[in-house]
């Protein structure tokens, strides 16, 4: 993705399309990633023998910190493709694995 | 009644503590003493006094309340104290001169 205008203060400002893509990657990607961490996290806790409610509370306590970290990373990573892959892709994979694991424990 | 007095003492202690820590910084020291140099010894003493006062404040909070509550009260008192000190330094810095009256 290329940069465009260069205002007088010397800092480049990104193009509108790139901004939109980066912001959606940050918001949607981080949300998906957080879902993945929660689902997989709860499933792993269930494997370790933790009661469901306790596992859920623990992951709820952690997930927002994960979101914030993912969001900040989305804006500092160089490659937009990598952001989408890691956050949305990774989130999707973790959600699937977590769900399958949890189903198996029923 | 006792709890009230302990909390007043804790607040005053936090206030003094933040005052001393602020005055251990050169720009704020110079607000009171002009371009007089802040010696390393004075800075150490101010920092020690400040930390001790904040520690005393925490202790007083723990004496006043249940532990989990006390930590919250202390944290917010330190915030309030820091704001008070910052605004005092901004508008009436001379009000803090008695905190360093011992250093001549």
């Amino acid at each position, binding site marked *: 993705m290329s940069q465009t205008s260069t205002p007088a203060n010397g800092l480049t400002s990104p193009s509108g399309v790139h901004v939109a893509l980066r912001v959606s990657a940050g918001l949607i990607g981080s949300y998906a990633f957080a879902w993945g961490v929660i689902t997989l996290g709860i499933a792993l806790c269930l494997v370790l023998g933790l009661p469901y409610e306790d596992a859920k509370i623990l992951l*709820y306590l952690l997930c927002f910190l994960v979101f914030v970290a993912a969001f900040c990373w989305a804006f500092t990573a160089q490659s937009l493709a990598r952001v989408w892959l890691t956050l949305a892709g990774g989130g999707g994979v973790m959600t699937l694995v977590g769900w399958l694991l949890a189903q198996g424990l*029923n | 009644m006792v709890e009230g007095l302990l909390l007043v003492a804790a607040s005053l202690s936090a206030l003094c503590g933040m005052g001393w820590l602020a005055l251990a910084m050169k720009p704020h020291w110079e607000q009171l003493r002009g371009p007089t140099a802040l010696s390393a010894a004075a800075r150490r003493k101010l920092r020690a006094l400040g930390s001790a006062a904040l520690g005393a404040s925490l202790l007083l909070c723990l004496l006043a309340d249940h532990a989990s509550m006390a930590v919250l009260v202390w944290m917010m008192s330190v915030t309030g104290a820091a704001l008070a000190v910052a605004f005092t330094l901004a508008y009436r810095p001379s009000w803090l001169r008695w905190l360093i009256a011992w250093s001549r």
Partner: protein
Amino acid sequence: MFHSFRAAMTWVHTWFGLFFGFVLIVVFFFGSLSVFDREIDRWALPETRFAPQPMPSFDTMLRPIFEKIEPDEEEVAAAHSRVIGELPAKLPLMNWSAYTTHRDPVLELYAEFAVKNNPKDPRDHVHGHVTIDPRNGQSLPLDQLKLGSRFFYPMHISLHLHWLDLGYWIVGLAALMLLVALVSGAVIHRKLLREFFTFRPDKAGQRSRLDLHNLTGVVALPFHVLFPLTGLVIFAGIYFPVSETLLQPNAQQHERREAQTRGLAFAPAGVRAPMASVDAMVTEAKRRWAERGMPGEVGFLTVTHVGDANGYVSIFRAGSDRVTLVGQGVHFKAATGRVLYEEPAPNAIRSVNEFLTGLHLQHFRHWLLRWLYVVGGLSGCVCMATGLCFFVSKRKRRHAAQGVSGARWVEAFAIASVTGTVLATLGILNANRILPTDLPDRGGWEEKAFWGTWLLTLLHAAVRSGPARCALLAPAWREQCWAVAALALSAVLLNWATTGDHLLRTLTRGYWPVAGFDLVLLAVSAIATLSARKLGRAERSAPNTPQDDSGGDLSEAEVAHG
């Protein structure tokens, strides 16, 4: 996208701070008011201005009142669209509950009624409620709006935007963006410790504004981190509804297991049964708490599966002396009064969760901490307001030169967010005193006064910020400050005129909810007057030159270097 980590963080802080700053000022302002929500209720409802009461006798007073509660008409009307077929004329009663704290003179009673034929949610239900005076069992009229707990507090958590829970989502996103702004702000502000106490009001324009922004942000950092985080954790079930979706089988399996081990039935048996003396159960619960070394009052009482053989009564201790809300639950079999289950001390995870929840919702008894919370909340408002003003002043001159009106609109919205929010609040307070007591849907009219006033402030700000195009300070700020001064004073005078409770009386009587709020209103009036005069002087002293600092705009580099 950016040439450095700091550049990225600067961009994120600037633009997400701008976008969500308006929402966050509103959330923090009404959050600060919500600390004293019940006290504001007393001011708004003069007939409830008496001392807080403990929960009264269930058997003699509460039970007959509970039995008369009807489902809320609006909720029933909404439920029609969710069900297949017709709703029965009399919806089956499921549960009763009552919750009280050490600050409640009046008691709210709730009932839940089952909505059975909803294909998407077998546990769908509607609510009914009533507010009573616990001293004599008299009900309060339903359309009396509790300004604090039923208007300012819901404003804080959901912005009164209920369609698809949109308000909860916006506030939640804003909370996350606040955390992002704090992280990015810490990255940008290199001299975090060195400039911890720095505030130079004598430095004109941008520098002093930035100082105040940094000061209020850094000094209250633990507060600014903990509150959005705990708020998010409280509503996490809305944002990540795992138990209702992906992990529903696991959640339900856990519930059934829990019900079995505790002896607390998941579903009613369908067999009718009488209810034993609940007062006796309360006495037993209090005895058990005292035995554990924590004597206390009832904070929360629920009856599940009312009138059924599987029914049980749950009694929780009010956590007035600690951070957690309620605890030490004791569950009794409703038909016999036998103890079914006494909750053990919570494990580590639950303790942390209960602490964080209680930290945010604050039902504890600690007046110093409550006022410190208000200080924290208002610091957040100042932080964001100065941030917005900094954004505007930085771009005003450039935009005015270019003939672009971006900064002017940001300033108009900033005015509506800051002085506008205060004016809307004062509008509803004045309306509360002016409107006739027997007006039908009085609460609805009060709410209209709020929204109407806010809209007026936005229009006023849009019209009276023209000078921003010439990079001068918008007169709208000063004018709205005068309006705040006037309306805050009139609220106090109207309280006196309509209830007879003037300051001298409330202070000598020691009735702090009303005395305290009147004093706060007078302080607001005084501060607004001083601000208006200061703004007036600033405007008069430099009629043609920009109100920004004489040293020129702070460049990006200067900002980035703190």
